């Protein structure tokens, strides 16, 4: 058993990180906030880099890698707060023409009725007839709700486990970013004549940020290896917690600055909130795990 990243996996993660640092840095993130809309050129570049075709077999024109590699790529996307229906397009690769190449933007209607990037998408999976737009809490994720959407998934309709896991990977990346930003600020910001990171109260907030990230990371990576629905549900719950609580604690560490539009912290929190409501988070994952727990206990 060697449950750690291989050299190839480290190289892949670094490659995605470099691409996003070049094409979607902080200036690009803030520009996207001011001018909403999907960057089609960037979408095609992701396609050319194999982001959407990562798990497609080489014979079908894909990269031929597995779920662990996809998770690493999505973690980087979450870390950079990259906007767009990434998971839906990735899942459509090989099925919807142009999705693998990043030429076609694919979005999907969630079991609960929410759909993101509806107006910008070329292809919509699921029935979005009569969907009305919401004033989305996240400036980087336009949202619609379908007419029949109740906000709760129908009992017989559960999200695709791969979509659940890729969303968890994005949450993990966002949680990592929250931890990095909090620590960076705690080192630089001085109050009472010393960096605020020297104060135990701040130190302990940062420590808990990292603990949640590392626990979620172990769960997300393991779920990527086993692809077991229970492992995926567990990973999702911990990644949701790491992202949402991480962003809140990061905001707290930033103090008054964290409450401003100019600081990036709110973008982390709002994206994390949106993701918790999508693709099999929350009660859907809890109920799945509850069923597994009882079945395993009965054996």
């Amino acid at each position, binding site marked *: 058993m060697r449950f750690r990243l291989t050299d190839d996996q480290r190289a892949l993660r670094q490659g995605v990180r470099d691409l996003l640092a070049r094409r979607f840095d902080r200036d690009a993130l803030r520009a996207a906030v001011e001018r909403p809309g999907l960057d089609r050129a960037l979408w095609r570049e992701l396609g050319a880099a194999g982001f959407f075709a990562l798990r497609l077999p080489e014979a079908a024109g894909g990269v031929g890698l597995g779920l662990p590699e996809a998770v690493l790529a999505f973690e980087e996307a979450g870390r950079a707060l990259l906007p767009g229906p990434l998971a839906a397009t990735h899942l459509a690769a090989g099925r919807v023409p142009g999705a693998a190449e990043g030429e076609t933007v694919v979005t999907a209607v969630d079991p609960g009725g929410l759909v993101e990037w509806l107006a910008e998408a070329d292809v919509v999976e699921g029935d979005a007839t009569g969907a009305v737009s919401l004033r989305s809490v996240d400036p980087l994720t336009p949202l619609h709700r379908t007419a029949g959407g109740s906000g709760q998934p129908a009992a017989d309709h559960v999200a695709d486990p791969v979509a659940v896991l890729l969303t968890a990977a994005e949450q993990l990346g966002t949680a990592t970013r929250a931890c990095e930003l909090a620590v960076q600020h705690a080192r630089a910001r001085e109050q009472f004549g010393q960096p605020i990171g020297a*104060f135990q109260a701040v130190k302990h907030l940062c420590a808990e940020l990292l603990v949640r990230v590392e626990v979620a990371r172990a*769960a997300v990576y*393991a779920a990527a290896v086993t692809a077991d629905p229970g492992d995926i549900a567990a990973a999702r*719950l911990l990644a949701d917690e790491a992202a949402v609580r991480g962003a809140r604690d990061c905001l707290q560490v930033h103090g008054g600055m964290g409450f401003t539009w100019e600081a990036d912290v709110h973008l982390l929190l709002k994206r994390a909130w949106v993701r918790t409501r999508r693709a099999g988070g929350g009660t859907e994952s809890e*109920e799945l795990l509850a069923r*597994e727990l009882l079945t395993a206990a009965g054996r």
Partner: protein
Amino acid sequence: MDLSYSPEEEDFRARLRDWLGKALPALPPKPSPDDWPGRRAWDLGWQRMLYDAGYAHVHWDAEPTTRLIFLEETEKAGAPYVGANFVGLLHAGPTIAAEGTDAQRARWLEPILRGEEVWCQGFSEPDAGSDLAALRTRAWRDGDDYVVSGSKIWTSHAEVADWCELLVRTDPTAAKHRGITWLAMPMDAPGITVRPLRTLAGSAEFAEVFLDEVRVPAAHRVGEENDGWRVTMVTLSFERGTAFVGEVVACRRVLGELARAAHADGRWDDPVLRRRLALLEAEFRALWRLTQWNVSEASAGGVPGVGGSIFKLRYSHARQELYDTAADVLGDAALDLDRPWVLDRLSSLSYTIAAGTSQIQRTIVAERILGLPKGR
């Protein structure tokens, strides 16, 4: 990333399972928790069985993955945990193996493995718990001996121990981390008084140990004089690294029992309780994965990684949450000391304090891993 085991590892698992299946029914009944001599004999008997079967070494020289399998399988089979052998096998033994002389290794290691000698830990003091380096028990040189005076607290198994891994201050003028020495003290030496300490769980799990001019041969010093802090850190990284592996497996079993109990009496239909159990299931699955991650990192690097403090922090709180949830499943029965899980709930209260409080662990994570500045 690979979570599969090699054929050799699977073979080890199969042989161990087979042996456990035969060995466990042969165990005598477990003595009562207050019967210390009985517990000592029982724990040593189990250690002897492991020794005869060739498993005694597993904590010391097996590959980390093999050790993980050992802890997983023994716990799943309901085998005894290390018990009275805890300090010898997991603390003093590894420390002597790493830092002792050939003569010291020859004297102390084999009796620990064979289940002949029990060790206890003389680290904590009434005025030096979390601030371990503030310890004040004094030792001064007199001929071939050190003479030791002071007191220790929270010393598990002190009543039945043969040896104590003892931290003493040998240079009161040095900076507090510098003047400490690690000694192996025989527990039958004149001048030692052991007073059992009753915990909130009602039993005497620990003791206070009073030392009045106890003579310890200088040949029993492990490492150099005044270098005991470094020697101790070797031990503590070990404790935080993998000491809780078996317990995670046990917690997952308890969680399954709770689910079954809740289902049997209808409480399972309460979505609040059901989802709380599901969240704990997520938690312990993740802690098991974190264990596998840390073990893999240790295999690669040779030492337990920094993951130990992260694991310990999260695990100690999850364990308390588990038994609080057990109380919700039990309802009024949670007030009955004779019911299962009730004593475990009381014991779990020590987890955020022992082996470094959660507050100390957070400071370690913030300063040593995140690189935040030292301060108040």
